[in-house]
């Protein structure tokens, strides 16, 4: 069977609809401001938020905060990726190990780890280490779980080919298991990126002394609502860029063709 040549909806349609969505959101925002139907404490003037954003971008303070936040995200994700891939690989080697730890990893996957963030503050203080560790802990579980599941669920027919063609254990791991489980591992890494970014911002808002999350929380507690929104807007841009970068790096070139 040949794969479908259609790649789903046309790219231009998708992008047009995305732009339309943004227009609707901002249009609704402007309309709400104009009619006064939503309090400015909840939804400040869009113009005020945009001018506040431009102001913030001129300040070195916000760039320093953004640098801290991005560093925490990347460091947290990096630690989680290395540890998650390693643990997932080790656990997948023996069915007994997989059986023992599968539930634990699945539980860690869904557990709201922010509940235990205060413990991270106790262990590592309010500085960078606690944010990095918290982000790493959040991102670790989906990466480890998906890696273990992916490597454990390699179709027997591929392993049979390896056996029939005399593949060594290392060749089987590298060329067959890693290849067959790549979509699931990449999916875990993508989830890990999202978890790391969300966790860093959350951690900075819950207890920190630097970073964009901390800045947004400070502005909001001082009722500087346009500034809080402006910081969030900057965060949205940064996290979108990070996610796009990771999506590009983690893209499977053969994703659409695989059966």
């Amino acid at each position, binding site marked *: 069977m040949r794969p479908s040549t259609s790649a789903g909806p046309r790219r231009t349609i998708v992008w047009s609809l995305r732009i339309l969505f943004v227009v609707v959101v901002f249009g609704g925002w402007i309309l709400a401001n104009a009619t006064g139907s939503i309090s400015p404490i909840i939804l400040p003037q869009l113009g005020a938020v945009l001018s506040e954003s431009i102001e913030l971008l001129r300040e070195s303070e916000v760039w320093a905060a953004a640098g801290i936040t991005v560093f925490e995200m990347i460091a947290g994700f990096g630690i989680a990726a290395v540890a998650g891939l390693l643990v997932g690989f080790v656990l997948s080697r023996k069915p007994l190990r997989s059986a023992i730890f599968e539930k634990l990893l699945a539980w860690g996957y869904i557990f709201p780890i922010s509940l235990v963030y205060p413990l991270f503050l106790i262990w590592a203080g309010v500085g960078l280490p606690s944010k990095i560790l918290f982000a790493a802990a959040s991102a670790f579980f989906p990466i480890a779980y998906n890696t273990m599941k992916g490597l454990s669920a390699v179709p027997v*027919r591929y392993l049979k080919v390896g056996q*029939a063609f*005399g593949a060594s254990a290392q060749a089987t791991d590298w060329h067959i298991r890693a*290849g067959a489980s790549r979509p699931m591992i990449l999916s875990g890494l993508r989830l890990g990126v999202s978890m790391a970014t969300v966790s860093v911002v959350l951690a900075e808002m819950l207890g920190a002394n630097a970073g964009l999350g901390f800045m947004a929380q400070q502005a909001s507690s001082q009722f500087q609502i346009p500034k809080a929104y402006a910081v969030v807007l900057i965060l949205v841009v940064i996290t979108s860029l990070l996610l796009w970068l990771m999506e590009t790096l983690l893209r*499977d070139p053969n994703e659409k063709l695989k*059966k």
Partner: protein
Amino acid sequence: MLPNRTVRETKETKMISHLNVENLEIRYNVNAAEPAITGVNLEIKQGEFVTVIGPSGCGKSTLLHAMGGMLSPSSGGIYLDGIEMARPDPRQAAFVFQDYSLFPWKKVVDNVAMGLRFAGEDKKVALEKARAELGFVGLADKADKYPGELSGGMQQRVAVARALALKPKFLLMDEPFGALDEQTRRSLGQELTQILHDAGQSVVLITHSLEEAIFWADRIVVMKAGPGEISKEIVVDEPWPRSLEFMTTARFDDLRAELFHRIQPTTASEAK
């Protein structure tokens, strides 16, 4: 149609290899009431095209897997030129599976090179050989595609190229055309088997099709179930190349009728 091809090395090899199956018995479970196959004796000479046919569950695939060193005999043994096949060695006997089993995450050329790489070949050399082998099966222009971009028939050709790239003494094919539609099955089957025959490639091919078993074979091995045993060996002395006209001859009809009666279950346990 594929281009004309030169005779491959296998036909020029001076020493004639023999694959011997001696009093083979395989039990999947030591406590099983009866073995999967028992008392199997078979000799296959290099250059022979042997088809194996029999009812479902008679142990055809078990026999093939054992011949390729993928199953350990419970008793008896498999010997290639007198040396026991204790483990898979694709340079001696390479497999082609029914479901192709190509790696969808690798390009076609990498799939073909993979067997060579597993066998310790240098990457560059393996890729060169893989491209040459793809040319041999008429897929040179598909080398840089992914398997998912090819039809089922093309994928099976790639699987054949992957096995042939190792220049195996014996090619073990487990219902290689079973997943294809009737038309592709017939045309690809005829084309590939003719190529393999012309190249002097030794082949053991399992099939469920009476026509395939007769048309492609120098010799047909008929198996029966409960337990799996060889019940008959039939030599097909029709010269090569064979045209489709062979299928309309009285000799073909006689062979077909004989096979038909031989593979019918004769007992209730076989019917199961």
